[in-house]
C-alpha cells in the first residue's frame, strides 16, 4: 500500500528550533548562528568582540565542536557564560542540542547569544537552531568562488564576514568577484571585511551585532 505523505525530513528539527526560538524570545535574547569552514576564524571573531568596547551587550556563547572544549576555554577567559556542545564527531549542531544548552546558561542575563556552529560549510546549513540571524564567515585563503559552490548558506545568511583580509596580499582572492557572487545570490545581505590580526573591520562587526540586539 502506497501512502503519499510529502513530509520534510528535517521536520522534527524545525519543530524543536521553534521551541528554541520561543524560549529566546521570552527572555528577550537575540541569537546568531555562525557558520564557516573549519578555521575561518569564528572563535577569534567572537574573542575580538570582548576585546572591543562591547560591555553594553550581555553576551553568552554556545560552542559547537566535534570534540574537545578548546574553543569554550578560549571564550571563558573573558568571563562570559559559555556552554560547550560536543557533537561526538557530528558535523553540525541540531536544535535539540541548543535547547539542552540553554538550560546551562543564565537566561535573563543575556542580550546576545552567539552560537558557533561546527566548522563545516555544508552540514549546518539545513539545521535551523532557532536563531534570529545567520552569519557566514569566509576567510580569504578559501577562494572567492565559495558563494556559488555553497549557495544555500549564502541565501540564508544575514551577514557575510570576509575574514583574514590581512592575508590578501599573499593569496589570489578576488574581493570584487566574491562580493558579486554573494550579492548575486543574496542581494540584500550585509558584507563586512575583517582582520582579527589588525582589528580592521572589527568595529563594524561589533556595531552590526549591537544594531541587531537593539532592533531585536
Amino acid at each position, binding site marked *: 500500500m*502506497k501512502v503519499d505523505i510529502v513530509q520534510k525530513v*528535517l521536520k522534527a528539527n524545525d519543530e524543536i528550533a521553534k521551541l528554541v526560538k520561543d524560549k529566546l524570545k521570552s527572555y528577550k535574547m537575540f541569537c546568531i548562528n555562525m557558520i564557516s569552514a573549519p578555521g575561518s576564524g569564528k572563535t577569534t571573531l567572537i574573542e575580538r568582540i570582548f576585546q572591543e568596547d562591547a560591555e553594553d551587550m550581555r553576551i553568552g556563547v554556545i560552542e559547537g565542536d566535534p570534540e574537545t572544549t578548546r574553543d569554550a576555554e578560549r571564550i571563558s577567559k573573558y568571563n562570559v557564560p559559555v556552554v560547550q556542545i560536543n557533537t561526538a564527531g557530528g558535523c553540525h549542531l541540531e536544535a535539540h542540542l541548543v535547547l539542552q544548552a540553554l538550560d546551562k546558561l543564565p537566561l535573563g542575563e543575556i542580550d546576545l547569544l552567539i552560537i558557533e556552529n561546527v566548522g563545516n560549510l555544508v552540514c549546518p546549513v539545513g539545521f535551523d537552531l532557532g536563531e534570529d540571524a545567520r552569519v557566514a564567515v569566509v576567510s580569504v585563503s578559501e577562494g572567492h568562488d565559495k558563494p556559488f559552490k555553497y549557495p544555500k548558506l549564502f541565501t540564508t545568511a544575514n551577514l557575510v564576514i570576509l575574514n583574514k583580509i590581512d592575508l590578501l596580499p599573499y593569496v589570489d582572492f578576488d574581493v570584487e568577484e566574491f562580493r558579486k557572487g554573494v550579492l548575486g545570490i543574496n542581494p540584500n545581505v550585509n558584507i563586512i571585511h575583517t582582520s582579527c590580526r589588525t582589528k580592521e573591520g572589527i568595529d563594524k562587526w561589533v556595531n552590526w551585532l549591537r544594531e541587531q540586539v537593539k532592533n531585536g
Partner: protein
Amino acid sequence: MHELSLVNSILDQLEEISRSNYDRKIVRVDLKVGALEHIEPEVLKNIFDQVKEGSCAERAELVVSQEMALVRCRNCMMEYTPEDSIWICPRCEFLGGEIIKGTEIIIESVYLE
C-alpha cells in the same frame, strides 16, 4: 556526515507512520533530494541500509530521486539550471539568481506491506 542525521530523521518518521498504520512494516521509501543540498544518494542509501536493521523499515528500499536546481535570473526573470556552480543567466549573462528549486529534502511516499 549529515547524511546520518538525515537517515535517523527519516527512520523516526517511518516509525511514526508505521505506528499509525497498525505497525505495518515499510517496504519502500521515496525520497526527493534537492541538487543544491550536497547529498550523495548512494551514501544516503548505504547509511540507510546499515541503520534500518531492527526497525520497521528493516526490509525497506530507499529510492532517492534528485530535484534539479532551478534559479531565476534577477535581471530578466529567466529560470535556468546552473551547471558546475556557475550561475550566469544563459539569456542575459547576469550573475546570480534566486533559488527556485533544489533545496528540498522530502519524503514523498512510503509503501507499507
